[in-house]
Every structure is written in C-alpha cells, then in structure tokens.
C-alpha cells in the first residue's frame, strides 16, 4: 500500500522535525527505561528473595492447624502468631510424604525467648564458686566436641593449679570492686548527693577491705554469697536478650535446608537436645560490644568503602567505643590489666597509666589509624578477653511465656552457631536460631504424661484443691473453709524431695538422646514442606490440602509467601509500588504526550490543511497523527528499552551491592545480580503502544477538523 508507506515515511521523517517530538520521545525513552529496569529488578528480586525465604526456613509450603487464629509468620519475630498446635506430628508426616512431589516435611515452630544474662562480675563469681567447690553443678561444663580453655576443665586440675586459679579469680574480683568503687565516687561527684545508696558504699568498702579477703578462704561460700547479693547488682551491664528461635527436628532441618552451615562449634548430635545460635545473633548479642563495634567499622571500611570521616554512623560507633570501655576493664584481672596498659602505652606512645583512659584514646580511631588499631586489638588485647559471653558448649537458660501466661524455663546447651550460605549478613535470615523439638515443646508448655504425674504429686504435697469458679469466693474468703492458701505454700517450697528429683532429671535431659519416633510423636506448631519440583507448588498444595481433608488431619496448607508474614508480603509490596509508580508514569505520560502532540498538531495546521486541500481524507490525517506518535513511541521506546536492557545486563555481570544488612535477604546475598525479564520488555512495549495510541487520539481528531481553508488563508 503506497499511502501506508507514505504515512510511515512521513512519520519517521517527522520524528526529529520538532522540538516537541524530541520531548515526547525523551519521556517515552525514560519511561521504557524505567519499566524495563524496574520490572527486571523487581522480578529478579522476587526470585532471589523467594529463594532466600524458601532456602532459609520456610520451605516451599507450610502446614498448620486449621483451627488457628493466625497464620504462621516465620520472620515476624516481634509478634508470635497465635497458632493451635498439631497434636501429633507423626500422624501428619506420613500422609504428607505420600504426595510424590514432597521430598521432606520438617516440623517447625517459632517462638521468642528471654535470655537473662548475668553481668561480668556474676560470671567471674560463678567461676570462682565452681573452682571453690569442684563437682557441684555442671552448668558450665564444656561440650564433648568442644573442650574449652584448659582452666575450665575443672575436673582434672591439680591442687596447685586450682589454688592459682582461685587466686587469680579473687584478684580479678577485687579489681572489679575497685573499679566499681571508683565509678561510685565519680557518680557521687556528678550526681546529687544521695543518688548512690549509702548502704552500697558501705558494702563496697566491706568487700574491698583486706579483712574481707583474709577471711575468704575460711568460708568461701558465705563470702561469695555476699558478693553475689550485695555487689554484683551494682554493675549495670546485665542483659536481657530476646532470642527468636525455630523449634525443629534439627537433623531433618539440616538435611532439608542445605544452605545451613555450621560456623562455630558443631552440629547438635542426632536426637539430642540442643541449640544452634544464628551467627548473626551470636555476633550482635553475645560478642563483646567493643569488639563487635570494631568489626562493624572494619567491615564498613574494607567492604563498603566507607570512611569514618564521612559516615556519621561510623563516628557514632567510634564514640560508643571511646565511652564504653567498662566491659573490657571489668573483664581484665590485675595481671592482664597491667599487660593491657603496657600494650596500649606502646601502641599510643603514651605515658598514661589509667586503663580506661588508655582504652578511650585507643578506641578514638580515625580512617588513618583504624586498621592498625583493629589489628592490635585482635592480636594483642583480644587473647586476654572473653570475646563472647557464650561459647559453644555452654548452657543457656531460656525462658518463655507460654500461651497460658506462665513462665517456662529450660536449660539448653548451645552446640554452635550457624548461618545460611549466601545470607551470612542478612539480619532477617539471621534473626532465627534453631532449637531441638524436645526443648521447644517444653518451652511451649507442652504437657507430657510424666509432667502431669509430677504436677499431681506436687499438688498433693502442697495441698492444692480444685476450687470451682462459682464457689471461689466462698471457698477462698468464706470463714467456714479450713484450708488456707497462705498456709499451704511453705509446704511446697520445703518439699525438697520433689524439687531435688526434678533437678536431677533436668540435668539428665541434656544428655538424653531421643529416637526419631520420640521426636516425631508429639506436638508441633507447623511444618515446612519441601518439594522436589517447586514449579508444581500450586498443584501440590492442592493435593496436600486434599490429603488433609480426606484423612481428617485438620491442616491448612499455605505457600512460603503467606507463611513469612511481612517479609513474604514484601515482594508483593514492591510489586504494588512498581505498579503504582507505573500507573502514575502512565498517566503523566498520557497527559504530557497528549499536550505535546496537540501543540505539534497546531503547529502543523497549514501542512495538514494543504494535505486536505490536495485531497487527503480525514481518515488519512487521523492515521497520520496516530502513526507518527506511535512511530515516535516505538523509536524512542526501543532506545529506552535498549538502554534499560543494557543496564540490567551490566548489573547482571557487575552486581548490585546491598546497601545494608536488610538487603542481604532480599538480594539473597551481599550482591544482587538481576537479569533481564522478557515480561518487562514486552510490557514496556505494550505500555508505549497503548500510551501513544491513547494520547494521540485527541490531537488526531483535532487534525481531522483542520479545514483546507487554513492552508490557503494562513500567513496573511
């Protein structure tokens, strides 16, 4: 068709004929660029993030008790969802595994515990107490797989070694008391009179007196008690740590989530109770704070190419390190303190003898001296310090509030720390630690038959009586009843036989190995389902729901995205934002292009009038404007798409560095390698065609209204 070719020829030649066209073209170019890059980024992030979520905890799908009020929310550690337990995992495991696409079913439940951590002086006193009475209490016993430093292996010490150790610990405590006294004095000077309890000052003076220490060896336990009760609380660095954890069948978990890597310590032995701390939590919560801050600065400088001079966050870390030297000062016994002073004097070329002041100026780092001091810290100071408050092999007392509101506590041995490969730096993937299912059940408040029996015997011994609600007032406060609530209490407390029995059992628990059957038979809060072919997720979810409905398992099946709370919704959120942004761009483009084409058309009234006079029909003029605008759109759209694609391809090779720890999760690693998404490319073109078509309609209609008279009359 000759005239169609003519239209095309006119439109292509017209593209660069007017300034307005170039503006329209640039808008289209920018928009397609945005669509291609944005679409590809969101699509790629969706894929990498779902990989992060699926590979770290969620699995492809989650099952949970259908009567539950909430849905599982694996990463919403700030709010534990209200889930009803699945009474017996073994009853659902088999049926779920019967689906040919299911490769594993891993029990999972999320909970948050409070770990109350004693302060520095508490820890030293505890060591001292242990040294004074070897064999009693095995709380700090090292793990078989992880023998701690030699002085902690208390069993095999000679009398001489023990004496030396006790002396050293005692010296350390005295040093600490001295530090506290100094602090108190300073405090008294700064604060108003009476801001420090005079009793505390007296206690400190007593604890610091040579007489106190002279009498220590004769009666160590009483002296220790005095220190623990009257002195330790004066050091305000004890900590409450909120620890989020997943209670799971650890062996099955490690097999199914093969991104799991042990960093420190080792895996919990099969069937044993135990916990693996997330490396991220371990570093952030349990590491010596000064050291952790140094790590953060070091990482920012070496990996993110930041400078202290320019980054206020790093300056803040330096300031905190300068001001908070307490933790280190308290950790050092007199001998180490002296060593530290000489190291610091050497490093700083200073004659200062005060350790806190030396530390303060040592930590006052800038970009030129940081790396050197970082090295001195780790090479020379760190060996004298306990870098971590908790070591693999230690036992942690974990407290939770059960659903009914009372507090459950369980001692769990920490076997090591772990991370998910590629997600090492992700605060999100690192927020969850792992706990064995047995301990999890205990903390959940799960009632075993033995527990019921134990409770019954305690109730009997304490004289507890069931009081129905409607008679409560009469029973408790009425004069006629003989049993008294207050009277019954001392009995329970004095019942040593029952309490002692319970204690012994608890110690045994950490050593007990459970069979797979024992682990499986019991409550779980839910389970992750791992699939062989993830692309069939939707179909498999349907099948699993059908299995549950048929066998009356009472389960609900949801996909990984629904089961991860806010995080799972994040991709949807970014998609929504992209969609909204696209929509706004769409509308803005429509308006601008429409206006520009109207103006361009008005400028061409004479040309259009001439064509009409020569014999061009209205339809020809209409097509001319539409085709011209579309050609403009396609040409600039192609350029925009090409540029966008080039950027995405470039990013695919170079990678995008995560701006902060949060993004590690979304990027599924420290760097994000987006790839070009065909959908975005096609979408960009469709959008361009639609937008240009719509925005050209009005000016095109206007063009048809141009009278041929205007060709003749113009320029008079």
């Amino acid at each position, binding site marked *: 068709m000759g005239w169609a070719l003519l239209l095309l020829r006119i439109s292509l030649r017209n593209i660069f004929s007017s300034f307005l066209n170039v503006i329209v073209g640039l808008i289209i170019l920018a928009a397609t660029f945005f669509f291609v890059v944005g679409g590809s980024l969101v699509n790629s992030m969706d894929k990498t993030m779902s990989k992060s979520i699926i590979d770290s905890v969620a699995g492809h799908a989650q099952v949970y008790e259908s009567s539950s009020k909430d849905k599982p929310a694996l990463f919403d550690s700030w709010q534990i969802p209200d889930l009803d337990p699945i009474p017996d995992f073994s009853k659902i495991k088999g049926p779920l595994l019967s689906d040919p696409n299911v490769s594993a079913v891993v029990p999972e439940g999320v909970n948050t515990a409070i770990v109350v951590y004693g302060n520095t002086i508490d820890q030293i006193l505890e060591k001292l107490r242990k040294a004074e009475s070897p064999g009693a209490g095995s709380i700090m016993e090292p793990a078989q797989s992880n023998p701690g430093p030699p002085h902690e292996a208390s069993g095999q010490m000679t009398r001489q070694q023990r004496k030396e150790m006790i002396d050293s610990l005692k010296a350390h405590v005295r040093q600490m008391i001295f530090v506290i006294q100094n602090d108190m004095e300073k405090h008294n000077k700064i604060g108003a009179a009476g801001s420090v309890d005079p009793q505390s000052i007296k206690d400190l003076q007593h604890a610091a007196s040579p007489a106190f220490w002279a009498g220590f060896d004769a009666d160590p336990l009483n002296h220790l008690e005095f220190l623990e009760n009257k002195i330790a609380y004066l050091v305000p660095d004890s900590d409450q740590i909120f620890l989020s954890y997943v209670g799971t069948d650890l062996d099955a978990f490690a097999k199914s989530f093969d991104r799991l890597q042990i960093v420190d310590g080792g895996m919990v032995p099969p069937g044993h109770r135990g916990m693996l701390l997330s490396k991220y939590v371990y570093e952030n919560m349990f590491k010596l704070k000064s050291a952790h801050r140094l790590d953060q600065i070091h990482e920012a400088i070496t990996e993110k190419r930041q400078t202290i001079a320019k980054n206020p966050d790093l300056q803040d870390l330096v300031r905190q390190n300068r001001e908070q030297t307490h933790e280190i000062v308290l950790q050092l016994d007199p001998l180490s303190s002296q060593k530290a002073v000489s190291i610091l004097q050497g490093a700083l070329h200073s004659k200062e003898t005060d350790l806190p002041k030396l530390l303060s100026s040592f930590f006052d780092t800038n970009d030129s001296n940081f790396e050197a001091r970082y090295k001195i810290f780790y090479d020379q100071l760190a060996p004298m310090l306990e870098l971590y408050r908790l070591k693999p092999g230690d036992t942690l007392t974990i407290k939770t509030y059960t659903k009914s509101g009372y507090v459950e506590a369980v001692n769990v041995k920490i076997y090591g720390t772990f991370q998910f490969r590629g997600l090492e730096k992700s605060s999100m993937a690192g927020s969850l630690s792992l706990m064995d299912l047995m301990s999890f059940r205990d903390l959940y408040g799960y009632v075993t038959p033995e527990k019921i029996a134990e409770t019954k015997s305690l109730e009997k011994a304490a004289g507890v009586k069931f009081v129905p609600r409607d008679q409560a007032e009469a029973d408790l406060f009425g004069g006629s009843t003989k049993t008294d609530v207050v009277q019954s209490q001392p009995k329970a407390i004095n019942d040593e036989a029952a309490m002692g029995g319970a204690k012994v059992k608890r110690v045994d628990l950490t050593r007990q190995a459970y069979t797979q059957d024992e682990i499986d038979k019991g409550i779980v809060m839910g389970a992750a389902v791992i699939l062989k072919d993830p692309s069939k997720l939707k179909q498999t979810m349907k099948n699993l729901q059908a299995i549950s409905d048929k066998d009356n398992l009472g389960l609900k099946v949801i996909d990984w995205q629904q089961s991860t709370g806010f995080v799972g919704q994040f991709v949807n959120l970014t998609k929504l934002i992209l969609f909204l942004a696209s929509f706004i761009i769409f509308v803005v483009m429509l308006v601008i292009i429409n206006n520009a084409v109207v103006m361009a058309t008005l400028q061409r009234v004479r040309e259009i009038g001439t064509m009409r006079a020569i*014999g061009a029909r*209205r339809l020809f003029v209409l097509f001319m404007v539409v085709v011209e605008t579309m050609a403009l759109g396609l040409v600039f759209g192609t350029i925009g798409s090409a540029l966008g694609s080039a950027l995405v391809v470039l990013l695919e090779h170079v990678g995008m560095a995560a701006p902060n720890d949060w993004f590690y999760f979304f990027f599924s690693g420290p760097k994000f390698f987006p790839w070009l998404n065909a959908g975005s490319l096609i979408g960009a073109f469709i959008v361009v065609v639609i937008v240009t078509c719509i925005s050209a309609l009005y000016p095109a209609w206007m063009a048809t209204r141009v009278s041929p008279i205007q060709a003749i009359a113009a320029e008079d």
Partner: protein
Amino acid sequence: MPQHAEKTAIVSIQKVVKEYHLDKVVVPALRGVSLTVRQGDFLSIVGPSGSGKTTLLNLIGCVDTATRGTVMVDGQDTKGLNDRQLTDLRLHTLGFIFQSFNLVPVLSVFQNVEFPLLLQRKFTAAERAQRVDELLKKVGLDKHTQHRPSELSGGQRQRVAIARALVTRPKIVLADEPTANLDSVTGENIIDLMKEMNEEEKTTFIFSTHDAKVMSHANSVIRLADGKIAAGKAAAGRH
C-alpha cells in the same frame, strides 16, 4: 480545434452569497456573484484585499461552501456533496497552487509531487514515477528530485507546487496569489510556465492576483470589489 470551439463550462457560479459569522456580526464576503469558466480558460481574478478573491477561489476549490446560490464544479453542485465527496472532487478534478507553496517539508521534491497520486491509489509505483519525472522535467527540476523543499529557492518551490498540482492531470488548477511571495522575474517565469501548461494540457487555470503584469497574461480577468464583480476585461466570461 473542436473542444475549443465548444468551450464547455467547467465552473459555473450562480448568484453566490457567502457570509462569515464573527461573533454575532455577519460579514458578507461575496454578495451575489455569477460567473462561468470554460474549459481551457486562463482566468485571473483581481481585486483589492477583502474584495472576496480568496473566498471565490475557496468556493471553486471545494474547500468551502456558499451560504446561498449554486457552485457547479465539473458538473457537480458542491452544496449537495459531503466532506468525503468534496475531498475526492479536490483529489481527482482540482489542483492547488498556494501563495506560500505549502510543500510537505519532510518529503523530497519527488515525494511531494507523488503525494496526490498516492492518495488517488490508482497507479503503480512505476506509473507514478514516470508521471512525476515527466512533470519535474517540464518544470525544470529533474536535477532536484531528491532535494528537500528547504533546499530550494522560492521559485523552485513554486515549480514543485505546480508539478504537484498538475500531476493528477486535473481539469482545473486553482492558484491563490501564486507570485506574491516571489520576485517579479521569477513570478513572471511562473506565470509563463502556467500558461504553457494551460496551452499544452488544456488545463483550466484560475488564479487570483493583484499584480498587473501577471494579469496581462490572462485571457480573461474578473474584477472583484466589495464582494461583487465590478467589471471584466473579457466580458465573454460573464453571463
């Protein structure tokens, strides 16, 4: 020559009145004009500005319709035609030459001349090329076929416009002040060229002008004043 003897009326105008409405004021442009143009005429419409020359040309050119009276072009009453029929009449029967040439700036000389043929959609590419080349040779622009209008002088542009007007072999060519934007020598050349075409192709030329030199080439002249025909040098054109 037999056709010459017959002198069939190609344009016939009867008591035409044209009024424009500016807000509520009615401005009369033509107040009862009657005239007949015969095939092969080389007719000049003259008169001062605002006398109604352009309005008369617009009516003959089927780009405007009369308020009252009849305008017959090639035997068709333009009043009874819709926009599409008027457009087709312009495409097949009429040719236009404008005061400021009105070429499509993005098209080459060749393409500008080819344009009406493409709109007619009845010739093959080879046929079109042959006609365009032939005409461009006639107007002396066969060396400039690939140039853009902006690369040509005013006279050359008007030659292109003449070629474009003649390429469909129309019965009537309308030219509104074709020499107004040209210097006198070039203007005369253009008129000579039109005259030549008129004689060779027997194409009817109707042009408006107020250039006395140009007028002298016409074989009939219509004088307009205040929307009426004042006097005619060649009264033969009148009824």
